[in-house]
């Protein structure tokens, strides 16, 4: 209790509160801008926090992370351009809602889902950090490999009507994750002698190309055919039912938010899986378990809620191993751990014993960041939704500029820009020919981790499948994977043959 009082005294100062709001705001804007990335924002902001108190500094940085996770939904919903890869499935239902004039509603659902996922995962962090982290760290490569294999089978589940095309795109994504230094031998593989490819193809440059640049090309293409004259979409129908969330609708999205938060927390906790996988799994789960499966992909608010709550829940959840054991699971948490150390805090069990007060302050700061997120989101949405009203001839060059800047920062200079442009063209043709770019991105994101954990498992088990008997969790996920292959691919193959199937439109484009 004394801890709490001291923590409150530390956090509830005007300056600290201002830092938290500022952090969330920066994150939100960076998240919403295609091409800009929250991890980079944290890296850039890190040196500015030296002068702050430890609690203020960490709340500020975590605020950037939280804001980024929520902000990325804005451009996904309004422009069909996800601000970050983790919001790619938000476009499935978010953009159709915008096209129906329900942009405000979609944004509200996304914001409520983001904040709820955030708060729930933060509470999990506060209440259960140490036991959960112990459990998570005990999950070795064999468990992780089976979880990843299971996740990859979900590619088939979101394929919709073009089942084989989605698989092709997914495998193309996996293939793209192959170049780089081979983990086992340390020798370069498929790098064509390019040093820049030694760490693999820079993910973010490819993501900016396939997710943002390609959409610009598609819209330019439409404009060329005479689309410039009319407004691309209406923000509002003026109809209250389309802009406001009714109580019934809130009830309708609540299960999706809870499921999303659960998936997001679980995935965030495990090292190296990341927010993109979380939103993808959550979306698939909510869709599969929904009685109104047909609505998904055509503007179902649950789809937006599932994706966004999972995306945001990964942020606090990924801090659980950092707080409790001192092991970061991703690049952005590694940066935050660096920030801890810069401020004289050593993450791990000592953190609570030695600096309990600071930890409470950070917890409080994180909860306040969630509140700030709600506030920033409310105002931000109004502002950002005006982007849709701006003529495409103005907004598109701006996005292209942001894409190039982002690719330059993320992809190692001009090399990243070239990659981004190439994959912009690839993404354009994928959209035109109805190859799912979601499965492409998911395959690409999961590939390296799946390969590493599977190879680790094979080495550790000496290739003996009997090892699995000691890993019940792994068996469970492998059985689920087998079931999911059977369930989705049989259904998928049937539906690609059937003339009037009832599956979702997994199209990236808006045609």
């Amino acid at each position: 209790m004394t801890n709490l009082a001291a923590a409150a005294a530390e956090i509830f100062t005007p300056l600290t509160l201002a830092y938290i709001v500022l952090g969330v705001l920066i994150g939100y804007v960076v998240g919403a801008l295609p091409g800009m990335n929250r991890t980079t924002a944290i890296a850039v902001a890190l040196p500015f926090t030296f002068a702050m108190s430890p609690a203020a500094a960490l709340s500020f940085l975590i605020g950037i992370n939280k804001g980024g996770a929520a902000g990325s939904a804005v451009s996904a919903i309004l422009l069909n351009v996800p601000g970050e890869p983790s919001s790619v499935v938000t476009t499935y239902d978010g953009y159709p809602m915008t096209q129906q004039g329900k942009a405000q509603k979609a944004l509200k659902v996304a914001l409520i889902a983001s904040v709820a996922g955030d708060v729930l995962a933060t509470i999990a962090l506060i209440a259960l950090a140490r036991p959960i982290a112990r459990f998570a760290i005990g999950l070795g490569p064999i468990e992780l490999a089976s979880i990843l294999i299971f996740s990859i089978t979900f590619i088939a589940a979101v394929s919709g009507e073009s089942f084989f095309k989605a698989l092709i795109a997914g495998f193309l994504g996996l293939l793209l994750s192959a170049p780089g230094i081979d983990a086992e031998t340390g020798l370069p593989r498929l790098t064509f002698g390019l040093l820049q490819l030694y760490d693999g193809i820079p993910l973010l440059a490819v993501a900016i190309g396939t997710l943002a640049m390609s959409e610009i090309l598609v819209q330019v293409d439409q404009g060329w055919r005479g689309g410039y004259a009319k407004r691309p979409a209406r923000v509002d129908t003026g109809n209250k039912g389309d802009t406001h969330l009714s109580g019934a609708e809130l009830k309708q999205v609540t299960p999706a938010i809870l499921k999303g938060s659960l998936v997001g927390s679980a995935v965030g906790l495990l090292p190296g899986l990341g927010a993109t996988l979380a939103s993808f799994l959550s979306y698939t789960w909510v869709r599969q378990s929904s009685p109104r499966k047909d609505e998904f992909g055509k503007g179902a608010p649950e789809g937006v809620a599932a994706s966004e709550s999972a995306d945001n829940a990964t942020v606090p959840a990924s801090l659980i191993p950092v707080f409790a054991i001192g092991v970061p699971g991703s690049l952005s948490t590694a940066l935050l751990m660096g920030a801890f150390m810069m401020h004289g805090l050593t993450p791990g069990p000592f953190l609570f014993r030695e600096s309990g007060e600071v930890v409470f302050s950070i917890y409080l700061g994180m909860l306040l960041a969630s509140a700030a997120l709600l506030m920033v989101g409310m105002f931000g949405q109004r502002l950002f939704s005006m982007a849709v009203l701006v003529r495409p001839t103005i907004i598109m060059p701006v996005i292209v500029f942001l894409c190039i800047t982002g690719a330059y920062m993320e992809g190692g200079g001009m090399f990243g820009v070239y990659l981004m442009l190439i994959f912009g063209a690839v993404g354009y043709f994928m959209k035109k020919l109805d190859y799912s770019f979601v499965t492409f991105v998911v395959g690409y994101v999961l590939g390296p981790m799946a390969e590493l954990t599977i190879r680790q498992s094979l080495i550790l088990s000496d290739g003996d499948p009997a090892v699995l008997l000691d890993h019940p969790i792994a068996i469970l996920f492998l059985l689920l994977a087998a079931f999911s292959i059977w369930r989705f691919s049989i259904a998928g193959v049937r539906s690609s043959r059937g003339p009037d199937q009832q599956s979702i439109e997994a199209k990236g484009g808006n045609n």
Partner: protein
Amino acid sequence: MKRRTFTTFAAAALSALGLTAAAQAEDWPTKAVTVVVAYPAGGGTDSAIRAMTDIVSQELGQPVLVQNVGGAGGGVAASQVAREEADGYTLLATNSTSITLAPLVQKALYDMDSFDHVAILGDFQNAIFTGPNQPYNSLDELIENVKSEGRPMTYASQLAIDRLLMHYIAKERGVELRPVPVNGGSGAVQAVLAGDVDVAFSGGSWRPIVAAGDAKALFAASFDKLKVAPELTSMKDMGFPFGVTSRISLHAPAGVPAERLEKLSAAFEKAVNGELAQTVGEKRSMDMTYRGYGTAGEVMQKERETYESILDNVGRETLTGKN
């Protein structure tokens, strides 16, 4: 590029006017100095350099810009800086192994003599550590345990430096080695804590974890004892003729005039001994001991020779995959 040619031209013109070399050296630097950090922002090398820039720029009287060029374990930055003009305005801050060891084990676009070695800014405190519940507390007990159970010794393999060291130890002690590839330092910690592998090599992240009782440190990877943990057995104590130490090193493209290197080196000496850099070193378990121009070259040369000897011992094909 154009501006650079202009500067060279201007410099040539000035010296043609009869200005002495000494006067020129006093004027140098006349513009911002860029330090290319070979790793992404937020890492150990990066935070050490960023803690020094204020003092360095005061000493030089010019701004110091930090540029992060990650990739290929420092290889991307090193090959980029090696191609820069040798005017002292572009420096490379990296892990010394990317200069001494990397060109030996993989095809690189540079070698040790592509650089002038400006200074060594600090030593990483490399150690081998293991999970808290493993039955062994030293290398000897580990070897005994592995032999009695008739199994290979497993370790979390990340970089050329730990592969080299572990292959060497395994060969000397006559056990079979099974490397398990992991993803970076945190992957190694994860694998050790989960008990998936016997041991892992760590550049410094072992310290807080060991202090918290979540892991045990077995021995120091360096020849001499570690400054941050003098109680830990070193490679020398165990009777090995070699040990490995990775360092934060500062380089310039080969051919920079010596007086400029000395000036840079002196500026960094003040910075390393500054309060901020020392604090960062303490927090991140790095021994920030400065070695200047001249000494740095010798240290690098010695490091190179150690790696060559170990490579000869274990056989080059073990690490390079070629014969």
